[in-house]
C-alpha cells in the first residue's frame, strides 16, 4: 500500500491548500477566490478561535500554486480580544472519607505537577484525498478510525453514510493524532462533492504543529495524607487541562482531564480518593489523544509526589512503593477501578532484581561523591486499555463506537480473508492475525489475507486507539476463528463478531537512570529497565517493539517536547527545530522484561500494549532527573525537564561552581 501522498491520482486531480487564521481570535468576512467550507458546522460562522485554524480552502494544479492562492486570498480579518475560558467539561468523584483521613494523617504532602502541551507528531503528517466515483466520495485519509470518519463526515454533510467510502492507505504513524476526525477531512469531501474533482491535501509539518491536535497541557494538584509508616491514606486531587479552542471529535474535551483524574494513584491501596477534573478552553490548538493521553500526566504527578514523600520521610522510593502497592489483585480501587489481574509487589521486586537496584544505589553514591548529578527513578503504574462501548456510554461519551469487530471469510479457493475494524499504522496487525489463524486453525499464514481500513469491506467498529488491538480486536478475531474451526473451514463460511470489550488494566514498573550535566544542565537517560504485565503475550517481538518505541517517546516527552505560545496566541514552536523530539543519541537500550498474568476479560488473556511504554516513562524518567538534581536543592514539577526548567528550579544555587 502506498502512503497517502504516494497514491496514484488521475492527471486532472487538484492540490488543496488551506487559508488559516493568522490571529488567535478574529472575525472574518467573505473570502473571494476561495471556497469557504460552509459544510463545516461552526457555532458562530466567520469566527476563528486559534492561530492556524483553517477557514477556507483553495485548489490548483500544484500545491505551490494552491498555496499562492491561499496566500493571495483577501480575507478581511478583524482581530478580537481573547474570550474568557469556557468550561467544556467538569466532573467530580468522591469515595468519601477524604477529609477525615487527611485530618488524621501523620503528614500531608502537597504538590502541583504540570504535563506540557505536546503533540503526537507521527513522522507522516495528515493527508486526505477526496475522489468522486460512481456517485459516491472515496475518501482516502491517513487515519486510525475509518468508520468514525465515515460516520462523522456523512453526518456533517447531511448525507447517507453509504455515499462515503473511507479508504486508509499505508499510515506513517498515528499515536492518537489520527484517531480524530478533522475539519480538513470534512472540507475535502464537501469540496469534491461540490466540484466533482479529485482533490488532495497533504499536510505540511508547519500545519501539523500549528493546527492538527495538541496533547496534555494538564496541571494536577495533589494532597496526599500518609500515616507514620508512610502508608498512603487519602488523596485529594484536581486535574485541569487547557484543551484549546474546540472539543475534538470523537473523544471530546473530556478525554485528557477525565483520563488523568481516573488514573491518579490507581496502583496504590489508598483508602479514600476525591478528584475534580476540568477542561478549559483557550485560543490554542485543540487538545486530543496522544499515546497514554491523561495517564501520562497522572503518572507523572503521582510518581513525582511519591518520590517527594519518600525523600520527605527518608524511606527508599522502592520500599515506599512496595508498602503501598495493592497487595492483591483483582481489587477495586478507591477510585472505582476494577483491576482485573496482576501481581503488583512482584512487578516491583522483579524490577529491583532486573535492574540490580542495590548495586545502582552504590553507583549513585560513588557518582555523587565525584560531584556528578546522578539520579535513579521508578515509574510504577497501571493504565486502562481496550475501553468498550458500555464503558464509554457509562461515562456519557456517545461519539465513540466503542465496539471492535472482525469478519472472516473462507474463499472457494480455500484462502482465509480476515478483515477487522482496526487500522494499521505499523503495529503488526496482519502478522498477528496470520499467526493467530495458524495457531487456532493450523492453516499456513501465507493462506491468510488481511484487509483493514476500507469501510466497504471491513466490519463496523472503533478503529485503533486506547491499546485496543490485543483487547477487543483480537477478541473478535479469535471468536471468528473458533467459529470457522467449528464450520471445519468450509469454503463459503462467512462470520462476523462484534465485541464490546471490558476495560482492562495492564500494569508495569519501570526504572530509569539519568545524569544531568552540571554545566549544560542537559539530562540524559543512561539506562532503562521496564517490567511489564500486558497479560498473555501474543507476539513477543511486536510487544517489545511497542514498549521500546513507547519508552523512547516518553523519554522525549519528559526531557524535550513542549509547545509554547506567545502572549498573543502565536505558536512559537511550529518547526522541528523548535519542537524537539528524541533522536537516536537520546535513547539508551531499553531492557524489557515481562510477567504474564492473563486478563480474565479476553479469551487469550492479552491486555493491550500500545501505550504502556510511554506511560511508565513519564514516571521513571521524571523521577530519575528529579533525583539527580534533588541533591542540588532543586525540585522539578513542570515538564519537560529541560535545561531551562532545571535552571529555574536550581534558583539561587545555579550560580554556584558546577563541580565540587
Amino acid at each position, binding site marked *: 500500500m502506498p502512503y497517502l501522498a504516494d497514491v496514484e491520482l488521475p492527471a486532472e486531480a487538484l492540490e488543496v491548500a488551506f487559508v488559516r487564521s493568522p490571529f488567535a481570535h478574529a472575525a472574518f468576512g467573505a473570502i473571494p477566490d476561495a471556497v469557504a467550507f460552509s459544510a463545516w458546522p461552526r457555532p458562530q460562522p466567520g469566527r476563528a478561535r486559534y492561530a492556524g485554524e483553517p477557514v477556507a480552502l483553495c485548489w490548483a494544479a500544484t500545491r505551490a500554486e494552491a498555496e499562492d492562492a491561499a496566500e493571495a486570498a483577501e480575507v478581511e480579518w478583524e482581530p478580537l480580544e481573547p474570550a474568557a475560558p469556557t468550561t467544556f467539561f467538569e466532573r467530580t468523584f468522591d469515595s468519601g472519607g477524604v477529609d477525615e483521613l487527611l485530618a488524621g494523617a501523620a503528614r500531608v504532602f502537597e504538590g502541583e505537577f504540570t504535563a506540557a502541551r505536546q503533540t503526537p507528531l507521527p513522522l*507522516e503528517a495528515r493527508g486526505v484525498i477526496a475522489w468522486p466515483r460512481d456517485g459516491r466520495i472515496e475518501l482516502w485519509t491517513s487515519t486510525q478510525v475509518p468508520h468514525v470518519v465515515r460516520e462523522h463526515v456523512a453526518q456533517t454533510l447531511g448525507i447517507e453514510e453509504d455515499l462515503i467510502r473511507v479508504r486508509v492507505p499505508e499510515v506513517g*504513524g498515528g*499515536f492518537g493524532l489520527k484517531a480524530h476526525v478533522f475539519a480538513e477531512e470534512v472540507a475535502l469531501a464537501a469540496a469534491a462533492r461540490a466540484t466533482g474533482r479529485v482533490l488532495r491535501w497533504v499536510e*505540511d*509539518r508547519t500545519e501539523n504543529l500549528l493546527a492538527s491536535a495538541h496533547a496534555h497541557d494538564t496541571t494536577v494538584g495533589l494532597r496526599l495524607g500518609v500515616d507514620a509508616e508512610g502508608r498512603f491514606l487519602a488523596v485529594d486531587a484536581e486535574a485541569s487541562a487547557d484543551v484549546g479552542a474546540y472539543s475534538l471529535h470523537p473523544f471530546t474535551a473530556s478525554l485528557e482531564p477525565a483520563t488523568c483524574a481516573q488514573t491518579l494513584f490507581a496502583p496504590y491501596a489508598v483508602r479514600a480518593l476525591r478528584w475534580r477534573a476540568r477542561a478549559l478552553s483557550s485560543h490554542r490548538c485543540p487538545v486530543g489523544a496522544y499515546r497514554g493521553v491523561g495517564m501520562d500526566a497522572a503518572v507523572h504527578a503521582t510518581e513525582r509526589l511519591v518520590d517527594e514523600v519518600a525523600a520527605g520521610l527518608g524511606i527508599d522510593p522502592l520500599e515506599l512503593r512496595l508498602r503501598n502497592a495493592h497487595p492483591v489483585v483483582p481489587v477495586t480501587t478507591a477510585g472505582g477501578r476494577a483491576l482485573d489481574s496482576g501481581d503488583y509487589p512482584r512487578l516491583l521486586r522483579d524490577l529491583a532484581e532486573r535492574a540490580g537496584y542495590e548495586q545502582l544505589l552504590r553507583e549513585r553514591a560513588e557518582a555523587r561523591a565525584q560531584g556528578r548529578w546522578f539520579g535513579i527513578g521508578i515509574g510504577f503504574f497501571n493504565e486502562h486499555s481496550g475501553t468498550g462501548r458500555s464503558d464509554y456510554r457509562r461515562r456519557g461519551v456517545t461519539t465513540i463506537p466503542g465496539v471492535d469487530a472482525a469478519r472472516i471469510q473462507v474463499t472457494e479457493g480455500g484462502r482465509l480473508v480476515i478483515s477487522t475494524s482496526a487500522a494499521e499504522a*505499523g503495529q*503488526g496487525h496482519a502478522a498477528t492475525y496470520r499467526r493467530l489463524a495458524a495457531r487456532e486453525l493450523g492453516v499456513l499464514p501465507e493462506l491468510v489475507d488481511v484487509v483493514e481500513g476500507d469501510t466497504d469491506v471491513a466490519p463496523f467498529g472503533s478503529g485503533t486507539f486506547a491499546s485496543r488491538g490485543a483487547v477487543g480486536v483480537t477478541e473478535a478475531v479469535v471468536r471468528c476463528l473458533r467459529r470457522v474451526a467449528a464450520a471445519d473451514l468450509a469454503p463459503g463460511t462467512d462470520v462476523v463478531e462484534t465485541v464490546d470489550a471490558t476495560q482492562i488494566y495492564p500494569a508495569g514498573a519501570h526504572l530509569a537512570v539519568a545524569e544531568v550535566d552540571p554545566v549544560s544542565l542537559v539530562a540524559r537517560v543512561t539506562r532503562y529497565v521496564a517490567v511489564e504485565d500486558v497479560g498473555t503475550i501474543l507476539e513477543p517481538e511486536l510487544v517489545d517493539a511497542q514498549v521500546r518505541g513507547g519508552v*523512547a517517546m516518553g523519554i522525549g516527552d519528559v526531557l524535550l517536547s513542549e509547545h509554547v505560545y506567545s502572549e498573543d496566541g502565536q505558536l512559537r514552536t511550529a518547526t*522541528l*527545530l523548535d519542537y524537539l523530539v528524541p533522536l537516536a543519541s537520546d535513547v539508551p537500550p531499553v531492557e524489557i522484561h515481562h510477567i504474564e498474568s492473563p486478563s480474565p476479560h479476553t479469551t487469550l488473556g492479552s491486555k493491550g500494549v500500545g501505550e504502556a511504554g510511554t506511560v511508565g516513562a513519564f514516571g521513571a524518567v521524571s523521577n530519575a532527573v528529579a533525583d539527580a538534581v534533588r541533591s542540588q536543592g532543586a525540585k522539578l514539577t513542570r515538564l519537560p525537564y529541560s535545561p531551562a526548567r532545571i535552571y529555574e528550579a536550581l534558583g539561587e544555587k545555579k550560580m554556584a561552581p558546577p563541580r565540587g
Partner: protein
Amino acid sequence: MNLALTVNGQAWSGEVEPRLSLADLLRERLRLTGTHLGCEQGPCGACTVLLDDEAVRSCLLLAVQADGHAVTTAEGVDLDLGPVFQCGFCRPGFTVTAEALRRAGLPASEEALSGNICRCTGYGPIVDAVRRCLT
C-alpha cells in the same frame, strides 16, 4: 530553468520552476515516491538523498542546485535494513544515510544516525540494522 542531472544512474533533463525543490522534482515529476517528506524544515531526514556521495535534505535543496550532479534516492540504494521498522515512513531516509556512511567508510553509531527521526521504534533496532549492513 533548464536542468540536467542523473537520478539513480539515469540521465534526466527538463524545464523546471526555479522554486521547485529537489524533493518535489523526484516525487511529483519523476514519481520516485520512495523519498518521503516528513517536515520540509530540515530536521527529520525522511527526504535524505545522495548528491554525488553526500547525504543531503532533498526538501531544502532546490532542484536547480542539483544541476550537473548525480542524485541517488532510496530506490537506487542496494541496502536492505530489514524488518526493523514499524510504520516505515523513515525507512528511505535511514537507508540513504546508511549508504552515505558506507560510501564514506564510516561506522554506524547513534550519533551518525541522529540526523533521521523515527517516532516508532526507539531507534535501537534501526541502529543495529545499519551496523549489520555496514560490517
